[in-house]
């Protein structure tokens, strides 16, 4: 979004052309990044309110109407709180880590298309940009853990980084499915490719894989080994206090909502409203879909118990990674065969509902088949291990 009218107006007003371009780009940046920064203030309130309701509490209700100003009260508290930097810490990297952590989440918003006409940039490599920027966050966590110069922090950072890199594999394989169906990495074009059918109906499995692994990427329950506050000390951010800790915290809250937005764009048709594409309605529609996904994420966070690290790793390497590879291959194979047979259009953006319907049905059924096969396999493995334990128990009982 570089406000074309503004640039021309400035240039006509006698401002140097380069400077005019810079000013219009700068204003665009401030507008685009304003959205996540305003959102995060309310996300913290929503998160606490929802968590409270699920746990049968009321939640913040003292500051302002419905406790809406609670976040500002928290902010003031963090602002005037003493901030300790341990003497043993590596000062430069210690202070840089929270900045990079927050920036890595805000940077994702540069490619988020809010409406058909309002977005930061429409990069040709949008999907890859998202993965690349998200990987900066991993490095920030590693740096935070190391720079604190604390055993717990370093160990926590190692576990988290191992978890994050592991879950990035199914994330990217799932991301590849919409990229392949749409034939582009640009976020805007991926949305237009869904004009007659959302990708979630073509590959629900990819959506679920993306959802699970992005939940893990944000370090939310059931994968919240980043800061299992009731068990470990606090993980990589143990030495942080005051506003710097607040930044890690805010980055996490914002990341969850950002994932909701990305999921909406990649699988739920973004701002595509069935009837008309008025910018305001498109924006509200995108926000509504993202909020529903965000709420589901909170719901899972507050109801599912935490997994152990070995279970988390096992779940990733022995379930998610093979399924994501299998899913990608299945979708690729079926799409290609149907395209060769003339059952599927080659350009989804131009296709009508009737043209994409056979393809959708077959892809959906293939996904269901994979899921059923998987569940059957899980059940038989579970039964085998249960039988093995029972046999072992009987053997010991007889031996006694």
């Amino acid at each position, binding site marked *: 979004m570089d406000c074309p009218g503004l640039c021309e107006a400035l240039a006509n007003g006698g401002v140097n052309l380069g400077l005019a371009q810079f000013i219009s780009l700068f204003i665009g940046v401030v507008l685009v990044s304003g959205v996540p920064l305003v959102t995060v203030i309310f996300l913290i309130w929503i998160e606490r309110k929802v968590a409270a309701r699920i746990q049968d509490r009321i939640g913040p209700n003292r500051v302002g109407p419905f406790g809406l100003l609670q976040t500002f009260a928290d902010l003031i508290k963090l602002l005037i709180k003493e901030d300790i930097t341990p003497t043993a810490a590596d000062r430069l990297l210690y202070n840089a880590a929270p900045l990079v952590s927050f*920036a890595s989440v805000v940077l994702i918003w540069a490619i988020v298309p809010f409406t058909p006409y309002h977005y930061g940039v429409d990069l040709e490599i949008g999907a890859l940009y998202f993965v690349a920027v998200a990987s900066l966050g991993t490095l920030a966590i590693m740096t935070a853990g190391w720079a604190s110069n604390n055993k717990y922090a370093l160990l926590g950072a190692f576990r988290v980084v191992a978890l994050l890199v592991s879950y990035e594999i199914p994330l990217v394989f799932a991301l590849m499915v919409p990229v392949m169906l749409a034939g582009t990495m640009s976020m805007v074009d991926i949305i237009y490719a869904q004009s007659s059918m959302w990708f979630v109906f073509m590959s629900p499995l990819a959506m679920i894989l993306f959802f699970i692994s992005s939940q893990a990427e944000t370090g939310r329950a059931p994968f919240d080994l980043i800061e299992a506050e009731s068990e470990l000390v606090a993980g990589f951010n143990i030495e942080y206090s005051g506003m710097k800790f607040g930044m890690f915290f805010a980055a996490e809250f914002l990341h969850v909502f950002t994932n909701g937005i990305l999921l909406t764009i990649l699988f739920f048709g973004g701002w595509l409203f069935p009837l008309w594409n008025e910018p305001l309605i498109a924006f509200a529609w995108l926000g509504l879909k993202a909020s529903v996904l965000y709420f589901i994420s909170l719901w899972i966070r507050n109801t599912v118990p935490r997994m152990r690290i070995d279970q988390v790793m096992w779940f990733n390497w022995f379930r998610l990674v093979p399924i994501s590879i299998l899913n990608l291959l299945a979708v690729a194979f079926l799409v290609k065969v149907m395209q*060769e047979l003339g059952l599927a259009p080659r350009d989804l953006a131009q296709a009508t509902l009737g043209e994409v319907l056979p393809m959708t049905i077959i892809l959906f059924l293939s996904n269901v088949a994979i899921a059923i096969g998987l569940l059957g396999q899980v059940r038989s493995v579970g039964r085998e291990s249960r039988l093995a334990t029972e046999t072992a128990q009987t053997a010991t009982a007889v031996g006694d």
Partner: protein
Amino acid sequence: MDILNNWAFVGIFAVMAPVFPALPIVIAWLLRPHKPNVLKSQTYECGVETVGDTWVQFRVQYYIYGLIFLVFDVEMVLLFPWAVAYNRLDLFAFAAGFLFIFLLADGLIYAWRKDVLAWK
């Protein structure tokens, strides 16, 4: 120069993004009390004084996760252009992509069999 115009936006965004979190931290630095003392600035160790080096010996397990991730990351890098161009290609392209993924899956299966992926 459309590409560069887009990336100029990303560049300004990348410069601005760390400024937003830096701002409250700087404001906090101005407002908050500064009263460090030796005890406060010690490394947090659950009440007991720090013993030994922070650089405890780490398990090679972490390295193996990082290694497999690196290999898959590079694989995805080569698969992304394949996925983007997929609608224009024929069945041979699927075969080529399948063989490529199959080779990498072999490595994954090897890692399974050697039991290096389970957290011990």
